[in-house]
């Protein structure tokens, strides 16, 4: 007997064994999906709905013909569990598997491709058998859903919500939440609030962000990194230290969507702009920059592309936008997102090219990005607008000093290099390490003395 024949008949035996001894894992107990565990999982944990699961598998038809194998693609098959992405047999079957488990599944057509089949490989009314490949069959690994692909918020769904619509920013939500830190429950409440303003109820920004991906009735566990939690400052009220990882259990009971920009007329937008500006400024003063960004961002999304305004409206709109961009720039400086800060300053200066704060903040951001020459230009322009600005004067000398230091450093580094390639690499390495930190530190030290920034995230209008 050749090896091919051997595996084939082995497959048939397994299929027969499944039909005979397999456990019926369908909720309605109609023997639509039968399962035999070949090797129990290594960990005692099941995947949850929405989890990203990794499966290696090989699929065969009843006649033993192989129709698919993840090994042919050299990578495990990845999907989100319980969301209808795969045939029913899989959503049911994989949910019963533990990490590292290996099993066989026999799937009736009603739980696979039914009478329609799946051209060109699966004929009508086919029973499918998922089974062993060389390195194990239906080998499972999984992890929670990484909501923003940055590892900051991991979600695991305990109960699926209904439908496909989510709350948007500004939507009013009613939720039940429980917060845990290091196994200790620090918060438990039912609360109604506006997405983006959870902070008012001592709810960290990560919950606001996650809610935008949840559906009505969903019950999930959220793992928040400190950035999406209470950050460096922690939350003394709950006895939470800085940089703490948090776990929340959240149920989205109901929500009402906020109006999208296109659903509002100009008058409404201008009225609301005043309201959110207030809110943004309040957050800013409390040092809650992420929340402030959301509020100022609303002004931009409402008014930046608004056309056909009357002269009066246009004036009001411009002044809201100017204030929003300037304040956003300030927030981004605080959040150390300098490129975004520069972008906001550019937009502010697009509205008012001689704006002193705009120029100054762009200079600051550029200085922190090691663009000394550009930064110097900005500070010089500040002085052209307002010769009395002492802060700008001292920043110029910082720029000059930095430029000089930087050049010297370069010279030293290049001294022993020969090829151009190596030079470039070294420059990159240099700018990434020492220089950045010193520049940042120097700029931070300067900050308290300079009068032209800081507290005036408030009223421009």
């Amino acid at each position, binding site marked *: 007997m050749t090896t091919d024949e051997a595996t084939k008949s082995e497959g048939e035996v397994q299929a027969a064994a499944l039909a005979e001894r397999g456990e019926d894992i369908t909720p309605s107990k109609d023997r639509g999906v039968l399962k035999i565990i070949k090797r129990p999982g290594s960990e005692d944990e099941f995947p949850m709905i929405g989890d990203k699961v990794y499966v290696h598998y090989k699929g065969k038809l009843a006649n033993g013909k192989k129709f698919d194998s993840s090994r042919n693609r050299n990578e495990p098959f990845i999907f989100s569990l319980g969301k209808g992405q795969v045939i029913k047999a899989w959503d049911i079957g994989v949910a019963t598997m533990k990490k590292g488990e290996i099993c066989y599944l026999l799937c009736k057509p009603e739980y696979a491709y*039914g009478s329609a089949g799946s051209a060109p490989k699966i004929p009508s009314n086919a029973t499918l058998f998922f089974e062993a490949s060389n390195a194990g069959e239906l080998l499972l690994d999984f992890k929670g859903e990484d909501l923003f692909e940055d590892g900051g918020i991991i979600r695991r769904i305990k109960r699926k919500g209904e439908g496909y619509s989510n709350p948007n920013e500004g939507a009013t939500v009613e939720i039940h939440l429980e917060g845990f830190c290091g196994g200790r429950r620090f918060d438990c409440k039912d609360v109604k609030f506006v997405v983006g303003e959870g902070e008012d109820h001592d709810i960290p920004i990560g919950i606001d962000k996650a809610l935008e991906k949840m559906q009505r009735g969903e019950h999930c566990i959220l793992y928040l990194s400190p950035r999406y939690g209470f950050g460096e400052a922690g939350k003394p009220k709950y006895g939470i230290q800085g940089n703490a990882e948090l776990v929340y259990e959240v149920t989205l009971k109901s929500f009402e969507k906020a109006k999208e920009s296109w659903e509002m007329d100009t008058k409404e937008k201008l009225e609301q702009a005043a309201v959110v500006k207030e809110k943004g400024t309040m957050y800013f003063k409390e040092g809650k920059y992420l929340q402030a960004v959301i509020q100022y961002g609303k002004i931009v999304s409402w008014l930046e592309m608004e056309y056909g305004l009357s002269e009066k409206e246009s004036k009001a709109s411009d002044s809201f936008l100017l204030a929003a961009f300037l304040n956003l720039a300030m927030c981004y400086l605080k959040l150390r997102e300098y490129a975004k800060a520069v972008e906001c300053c550019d937009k502010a200066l697009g509205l008012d090219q001689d704006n002193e704060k705009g120029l100054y903040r762009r200079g600051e951001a550029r200085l922190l990005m090691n663009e000394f020459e550009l930064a110097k230009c900005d500070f010089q322009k500040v002085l052209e607008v307002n010769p009395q600005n002492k802060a700008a004067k001292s920043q110029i000398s910082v720029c000059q000093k930095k430029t000089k230091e930087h050049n010297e450093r370069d010279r030293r580094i290049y001294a022993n290099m020969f090829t151009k390639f190596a030079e470039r690499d070294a420059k990159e390495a240099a700018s990434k390490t020492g220089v950045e930190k010193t520049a940042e530190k120097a700029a931070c030290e300067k900050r308290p003395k300079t009068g032209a920034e800081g507290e005036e995230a408030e009223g421009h209008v």
Partner: protein
Amino acid sequence: MAVDELQAIIQRCQILEEADFKGEDFNLFQVAGQKCLEDGYAAQLLEVIQNEKNKVIIKNMGWNLISPLVRCIFMYKQEDDKREHCLRILEQLAQLCNPKELFLGLLEQIEQTSGEQVCQTVMLLLQPLQTVLLKLQNKKAYSVGLSLAMIMNQLTPLPVPYTKQQIQEDKLGLCQCCNAVVDFAKPFVNEVVKNMEKSSEYNDMELKEELIKFCMKSLQYPLLTAQLEQLEGIEEHPFRHFANEITDILWNIGELIPLVFVHRKGKSPHWENQEFADIERKNSADSLACLSYLMFVQHFGVEHFPVVFSPSYLLLCNMTHIEVLLKRTEESVLSKGLDLFESCLLRMEDNSLLHHYLEFRDFINVPQDLVKIMTLCPMEHMRKKSLSILQLFIDKFDTEGKYALFRCLLKTSNHAGVEGYIIKNIKDQIHLALTEYDNIWFTGHHLISLLDLVLSLPEGAETDLLQNSDRIMASLNLLRYLIIKDCESDNQTGVWTTLGKIEQNFLKPLRVGLNMSKAHYEAEIKNKKENRKEAHSSNTVCSVTVSGEKMPAMTTGMQLQVLHSALFTFDLIESVLARVEELIEVKTKAVMDENS
């Protein structure tokens, strides 16, 4: 004479070192070489080039001859010896010349060609270009990318053969050329594959990116507009072959599956300029739609595709592509969209698509696009096909989904024919609901709110009955069905409860409208007849132009015919209306008799 001049400059340069060649020497060499070619001394030139002693000279100066060489090759007939010599020269140059300069020389030739010569030129130069690229040391990936982009750009303005005859004829050589370009790309694909097996280095990524760009471009042109169905009598369909090669390349470099599931990996190049970014997005949307079509309809590369996805999810993933394709008007693209949509729907069981999917915007937009095609597309087979696909789409939804879809289509279609069709579908669903027990959407209060929409006249008695006749007839038929099928005592559908409203919003204004319209048209007929007696001469009120051609004016006889057919339509509506009223009366009376 020309040969002598060439010999002279060659002899002068033979004794020089490579570094001592001057600009003047280059010029003299080019002029003399060109003259040799023009005067028919290709054989002699070939000899000079093959001479081992001249190796250094040719290495440095040879690329100058590309332009006159290409010109000469096109001048000579196919069987001319001189042409053969020229081709040998080209071959030699590819071997001997400095690759960097020759590369630019060849590219320049491709850039300069246009019109009917494009394919010929490209096919002539592909081989030397490949030789040179394989020899290139630096910036190889960039150069391969540049070559492929340049070639595809030059081909793009050419019309893509569409009918069987056009494909067989391949007048401009496009079919042949495309497949030659794939062969040209193959060694580079192999290189990427080999390197992938070893390890992934930064440099390989570059070559891979260039090949992806080439494939994406090919998907958009020529494949998106090409005919890709199997054609009888053509064994090796050139575009099917090309499509197969392109999907193969993508699979081999490990990008096929990620591209088909592109929404999972949202990677797109960053453009400073918003305009470029938009163009890029649009182009890649076209290419990806075409790729999906190749895979799911024509089954190219489908053997690599995981067979565990649910049909609903496949439909969801393809909906974006379908929308992109259905927005276009070219038959070639539109039909791909319809085919892709159909193939996704055929994978599903009836009633299996959950109504939740309607929360995705595509699921609402795409049926509206279908409606546009079936009402506005000038090609009849497209209109018919889109109607049959709409029915298929309706069939796949669960009851609540069907209900929501009907509502949406009634509100958005703005076309009496389509509305009539939807109303007929509603009738079928009610019929089903009356035989099942748990159907809450086509009985009771949900149905009543749908009937409000159906059993009404958009502009009351003033509604244009002729324009809306399809819709009105369907509505009346539905009402007749309800009254016959559902007794007042059962009132399963709820129609008896809402009869007063129907009378007020629909039947009464319809009666008034019918009387007004009939009177109006009868008067018009009378008018026309009298006019005919009075003045036979044509006094046309206005003229109609269809695609630039003036239609002949309607004769009075034709006008009368139209008016009569309108009257006939009104009669038809009136007879059904009368029947409905009669039924209502009989049934209500029967109930009253019972009660009394």
